């Protein structure tokens, strides 16, 4: 689960990681008030669940409360389109109003999961900032890493090795060590999948400050963090994706016109690949899951039918835990309740496949039944 920068900075502050003074504002008047409390001069930052805000015009320095109000009005008025949001952009319902920092240097720090070592890993670079990914690609030695033993935690000698690459004087080195220790505590205690500070700046006064903050929380661990669960912001996700997530269906909106209903993430990806190989593209990724009921299948089909980009539907069910007859009943229920006549290709295999097929055949719906992946992809392309 993604959270906003201002929320991540509140977590940082709680863990003793230095952040600029500032506050979130939900309307232009609040933004102006927040700026005046900072003495007029402030940085206004659009709060969206996507990076690339600076280059997209989502961050600006203002010199007065009036300017803060004017710029915030502009940000609230339309979606912010960045390199990571897709063409429709993301709506701005909060801005962060912060004290500007005088930047002498930018450092990069992050903790995430290293899948190869099956351990957390901390990354540090003396050259942080917006070009960190290019730095990582062109000059991997500029990124120092330490793999963390989950039982021992982040060890002081590892911190010393990282600090040695950051070219800091001894006072700043102590602060940086403190920041790393706090980041790891946050990572573990909040079950994060990412804690990133880019940049961690050295100010011209000689202090460290987390100028940006990115924290991703692990969805599977939210059950034990009821306080953090509330940090979710559904406005930042596609409406259909929110509906799917409420019913525990894995769904991602895509650009094509073929609505796909599949059980299993791997089979869903394989289905998208095979129809692309035969000339059509998926409107969505949808994994209805293993133990789905008639209602859950019907709700999933309705999400597909409610997507205006969808002009045909492909169902690929490999019955195992999910029985084909249940899937078929769910599909028919959704079509009948929505009054839909969208053409549908259905490929079913496995448990109770004959009952499933006859339910669909007798439904009077515009359905083509096929047996193999290739037939399914061809039939969808011919509609």
């Amino acid at each position, binding site marked *: 689960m993604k959270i906003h920068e201002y929320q991540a900075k509140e977590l940082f502050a709680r863990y003793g990681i230095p952040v600029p003074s500032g506050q979130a504002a939900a309307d232009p008047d609040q933004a102006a008030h927040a700026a005046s409390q900072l003495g007029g001069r402030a940085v206004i930052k659009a709060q969206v669940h996507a990076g690339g805000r600076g280059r997209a015009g989502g961050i600006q320095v203002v010199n007065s409360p009036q300017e803060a109000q004017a710029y915030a009005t502009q940000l609230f008025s339309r979606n912010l389109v960045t390199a*990571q949001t897709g063409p429709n952009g993301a709506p701005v319902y909060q801005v962060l109003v912060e004290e500007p920092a005088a930047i002498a240097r930018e450092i990069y720090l992050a903790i995430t*999961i290293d*899948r*190869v070592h*099956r*351990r*957390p890993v901390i990354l540090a670079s003396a050259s942080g900032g917006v070009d960190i990914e290019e730095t990582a*690609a062109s000059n991997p030695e500029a990124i120092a890493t330490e793999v963390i*033993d*989950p*039982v021992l935690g982040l060890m002081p000698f590892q911190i010393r090795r990282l600090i040695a690459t950051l070219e800091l004087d001894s006072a700043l080195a102590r602060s940086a060590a403190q920041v790393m220790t706090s980041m790891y505590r946050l990572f*573990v205690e909040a*079950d994060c*999948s990412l804690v990133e500070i880019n940049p961690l700046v050295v100010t011209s006064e000689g202090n460290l400050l987390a100028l940006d903050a990115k924290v991703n929380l*692990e*969805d*599977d*661990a939210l*059950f*034990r963090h009821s306080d953090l669960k509330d940090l979710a912001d559904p406005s930042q996700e596609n409406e259909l994706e929110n509906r799917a997530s409420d019913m525990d269906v*894995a769904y*991602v909106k*895509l650009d094509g016109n073929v609505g796909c209903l*599949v*059980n*299993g*993430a*791997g*089979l*869903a*990806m*394989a*289905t*998208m*690949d*095979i129809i*692309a*190989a035969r000339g059509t*593209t*998926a409107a969505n*990724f949808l*994994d209805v899951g*293993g*133990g789905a009921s008639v209602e859950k299948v019907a709700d999933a089909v309705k999400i597909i039918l409610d997507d205006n980009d969808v002009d045909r539907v492909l169902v690929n069910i*490999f*019955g*195992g*835990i999910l029985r084909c007859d249940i899937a078929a009943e769910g599909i028919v229920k959704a079509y009948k309740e929505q009054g839909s006549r969208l053409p549908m290709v259905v490929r079913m*295999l*496995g*448990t109770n496949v004959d009952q499933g097929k006859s339910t669909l055949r007798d439904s009077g719906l515009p359905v083509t039944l096929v047996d*193999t*992946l*290739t037939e399914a*992809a061809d039939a969808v392309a011919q509609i």
Partner: protein
Amino acid sequence: MGILVDEQTRVVVQGITGREGRFHTQACMAYGANVVAGVTPGRGGQKVEETVPVFDSVEQAVAETGANVSLIFVPAPSAMDAVVEAAEAGIPLVVCISEGVPVLDTIRVAEYLKTSSTRLIGPNCPGLINPGASCKVGIMPGNIHLPGRTGVFSRSGTLTYEAVSQLTNLGLGQSGCVGIGGDPVIGTNFVDVLRLFDDDPDTDQVVLIGEIGGSMEQEAAEYIKAEFTKPVCALVVGATAPTGKRMGHAGAMITGESATVEAKVKALRDAGAVIIPTPADIGVTAQSLMAATL
């Protein structure tokens, strides 16, 4: 023979009295697996399927029944507790079906298992099957399998079934099928499974099914190139998946260059694997690979 499970397998099901535990205990037994015990704390003394005794702890189940494989259906928050309990009871193979286990829990347990002789498959996996020994320790539909000499393994559940069904339709049986699980951190990876198939005299060739995310396919490719002695065909799915979006498997996330389908396919091809062109060609590719080696 075959790998990991066979006629000697004696299964204890942890979480046997839950809905899924009960259902799949019955299905595994119907396929021919020897389920000797179940564990649900507080339910000791009951019976499931009229014959399977339920115990309060894995330790008791092992002492009473000689169980040597554990199959776990315990809900995610307690799943790793169940894994460690099985390992402490001396069970050498633990198969964890549970979905939604917090990654940091799995990481700690994976660390613990480094000092133990217990192997973990999963979590978030369909389990494994040895058709030749009529032994099913998982949730896959048993009837699509056929005894034979091709090994199949994958990070996905239903896509493994798809692969198996294509093989079976062409009369190409399986020596073993292993779903290793879709989470970012899992107990047994592709290289571990490749080693087991390499040592298995009943396996002539393998089908590897990978997907976007992580770099496990590249690690497999390095091992195949350096040590693996049998023919490999490989499919990597997710070429049309969008970048940076979560695709249901927490593992299937594009995190860098190595996570792309192109990078994985290239590594596997360079290692000598035959690349399966589309998900519809798994059976035919494996069939012609088998014909070429005979």
